[in-house]
């Protein structure tokens, strides 16, 4: 069953110079899938993520998230929709600096007005799962990047959203912390069947996913599925990326031929 369906989505930024950010993009994400979206800078990844996050509206085309069309919802309901159905993980964590790790994680639940007991139980459960129990009372400025990103994942998970949207979650982390975060994401994906859509530049990060979708200049370029081995999947991702490099690769081959 598809949890996210994009049909012919197009986004044009009006202005002095009109800019076509996404052009007739269509794809589907299955429930429980861990999908990566890759593409060079300026390919429309962030725009795509914003549109799926429902904070930006497509110029044309249809989006369906768990059976609902956000474009038809009034603004207020849209906020409530995001609050309950979506979870976010950002490149620079975006934890609220004034809140402790624990408070950052319960934030989505407090916004939804849940009872203290429920919040306490959930935080306890997730903190154990993400190995954050010892730093629950610390502030974001007192913890490492890896811990901060794990906290952010905790915040994205706590209200059990139907889809988690991650924007370069490993972009600000060292390799050890990045590996940690990716393993947690794929573990969450496997154990609780949470759908995750991740935008990334990093082929290693992408290789943790079930499927990688490539876009270029706002258009669908290619997609590849994970086979059995992560190593070979990583190699295939690299191949597509070099193909994506576009003109350069072709230029190189013509020179070689001649």
């Amino acid at each position, binding site marked *: 069953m598809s949890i996210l369906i994009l049909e012919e989505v197009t986004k044009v930024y009006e202005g002095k110079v009109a800019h076509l950010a996404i052009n007739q993009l269509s794809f589907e994400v299955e429930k429980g899938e861990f999908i990566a979206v890759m593409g060079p800078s300026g390919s429309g990844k962030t725009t795509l993520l914003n549109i799926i996050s429902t904070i930006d509206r497509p110029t044309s085309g249809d989006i369906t998230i768990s059976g609902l069309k956000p474009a038809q919802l009034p603004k207020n309901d849209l906020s409530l929709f995001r609050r309950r159905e979506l979870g976010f993980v950002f490149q620079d964590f*975006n934890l609220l600096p004034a*809140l402790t790790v624990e408070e950052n994680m319960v934030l989505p639940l407090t916004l939804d007005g849940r009872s203290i007991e429920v919040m306490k139980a959930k935080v306890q459960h997730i903190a154990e799962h993400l190995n954050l129990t010892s730093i629950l009372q610390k502030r974001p*400025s007192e913890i490492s990047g890896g811990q901060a990103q794990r906290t952010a994942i905790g915040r994205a998970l706590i209200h059990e959203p139907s889809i988690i949207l991650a924007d370069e979650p490993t972009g600000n982390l060292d390799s050890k912390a990045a590996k940690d975060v990716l393993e947690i994401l794929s573990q969450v994906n496997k154990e609780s069947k949470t759908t995750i859509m991740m935008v990334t530049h990093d082929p290693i990060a992408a290789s943790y996913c079930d499927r990688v979708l490539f876009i270029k200049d706002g258009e669908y370029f290619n997609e590849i599925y994970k086979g059995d081995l992560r190593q070979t999947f990583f190699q295939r991702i690299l191949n597509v990326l070099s193909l994506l490099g576009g003109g350069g690769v072709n230029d190189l081959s013509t020179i070689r031929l001649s």
Partner: protein
Amino acid sequence: MTFQQFAYHNVIRNSRIYAAFFMASIFSVMVFFVYSMLMFHPNIEDQFLRDVAFGGMLVAQVILIVFTMFFLFYSMSAFLQARLHEFGVLLNLGMERQQLNRLIFLETMILGFISITIGIFFGFSFSKFFFMIIRELFLLDSLPLYLSWKPFALTIIVFLSQFIIISISSVVFIRKKEVVQLIKGDGKFSEVATYKKGNAFLGLGLLVVAYSLVIFSVFHMNIFMSLLIIFMAIIGTYFFYTDSMLYILDIIRRKERLYWHSFRLIAFAEASIKIRENARMFFVVTIVSTIAFLSVGVVTSFTSFTAQYRELNPVSIFYASDWDNPFEEADIMKLSQELQREGLSYELVKFNVKKQTSSNSHEPVNVIKESEVNSLAVALKIPLIDLNQGEALLVSSTQVNFDNIRSGMEQTVLEESSIPIQIKGMYKHPIFPSFVIKNRAFIISDEDFSLLTEPLFGFGVEESKTTFFAFHVSDWLRTKDVGTDLDKIMTETMGISEVNPNPFYFVNPGLNFSVIRATFALLLFTGLLVAAVLLLAAGSFVYFKLYTDLDRDKKQYDVLRRMGVTDQELVKIVNRQLVPQFFLPWGLAMVHSTFSFIFLQAFWVDLAAVSIAMEMLIVLIVFTVIQVSYFFLIRWRYIAHIQE
């Protein structure tokens, strides 16, 4: 583009950021200039007035300078803080440190130049208006606009040197940092709000003790205590912001049932950071607003003082003369001449007062004739009295005496002439100064009065007589130049003692009032304008702070919006963040000034029986309205910015 143009464009194209700053500094220059105009005015002849004007303006200007200095320094460093990234980029592009210093210096000087020019322009335009108000308040004949280099020079020198000092000190502020640090921006948000528990209790304790002392002092007035109270309140306020508030918030944050509730989580946590960061600013704003509220409040109370002063002193000029007063005739002549010279119409009522002994108290009392009282009453337009033979009205310097009379002492005999009289009641209008009444006096009917032939025991007929001269001048405020030499004798010989060594007693409420009035009027102007400058500046402090934190806040709200906070909820969160920033210093200032008014009220009662409760309420309400509208204005801009 030359270097100078670059600096110029930096200022002009950022005018939106500088708007609040400009407004506050222009206004400050303007007020300073207007004060200088009055200070150097060549046409003020009155020596007293000149002293008051010069001294008052000087004090006001010093306050303005100190405050403007602080304000400029604070806002300049806030601006530079916000532009650190930009400076980093410039240095990265190869700008020399020396050039950067010059750039900042130039920019500050451009800001200063514009503020001074516009400020002086508006100042000069409003000078005439200001002089008109001063002329009315001081009852001067004319106070024309004049042109002299002095006020211009003073304003330009003072503000130019301020801007130079500021620009040099702000350069030092940048110099210490590395390029990398600059490019990364400040980023030094102290995320953890630390506080000392001891200081937290000290702050709260000092405030509570100060307030209790105020209440206590209402019953036991003590001037020395006021210094102690002020000192404790100031220290207490400081610790209240740096520690106590954070302590209180921390207690709330430990109670999850209270704290983990929709937006409270964000609001409280943010509040504690903002309070920690702005503690010093809140402190300054609180103290400054308290002073502003107070000066305006005291001055407003003056309007009611005028009315009540008139009620307490209905007779414009009063002269009491003993039987052996050799100056009587000359003095009365002189007073009449002076009144004529001033072009004031007057009515003179002469009272022939006889002294007798009252059988009740066995003390000498003054006895006044009914028809004479009535002729003054006609002039003053107060109800006439009608006494039959044997009836009397009591004139008393105090209210309590009347109660004693009611309880059985209504009959008395004027012993020397054996005239029995019945005391009908009390004469309610204070037409005689309490000093000449001493204990008590009776008004009796003309028939009885003519029967008073016997002198006071042990005195001759002439010796038991006194004469009162009451001048009624309807334009009583203009009598300040009448009887100045008599007034001088009175103040010199009597001083503060209650004994009058002169054979006469003279009082001119108009003159006394003009002294009080001039002092208060000056306070009014200094107070009002300084308060206006301070309020504007306090508001723009908050505005800068919001503006410099805007990028950070924007990002935070973006995260919140993604997490599903609706627009209405966002406004609620913004409210909960802005409200304490606006109303915490203001609220504490309100409480401070309320207690100060209570203190003043206690003090005031000793000076004159005037209540300032009503005026106090009006002042507090007006300030509330101003503050609330300022809050809505800033909130509107802030929300517009973060939703961009």
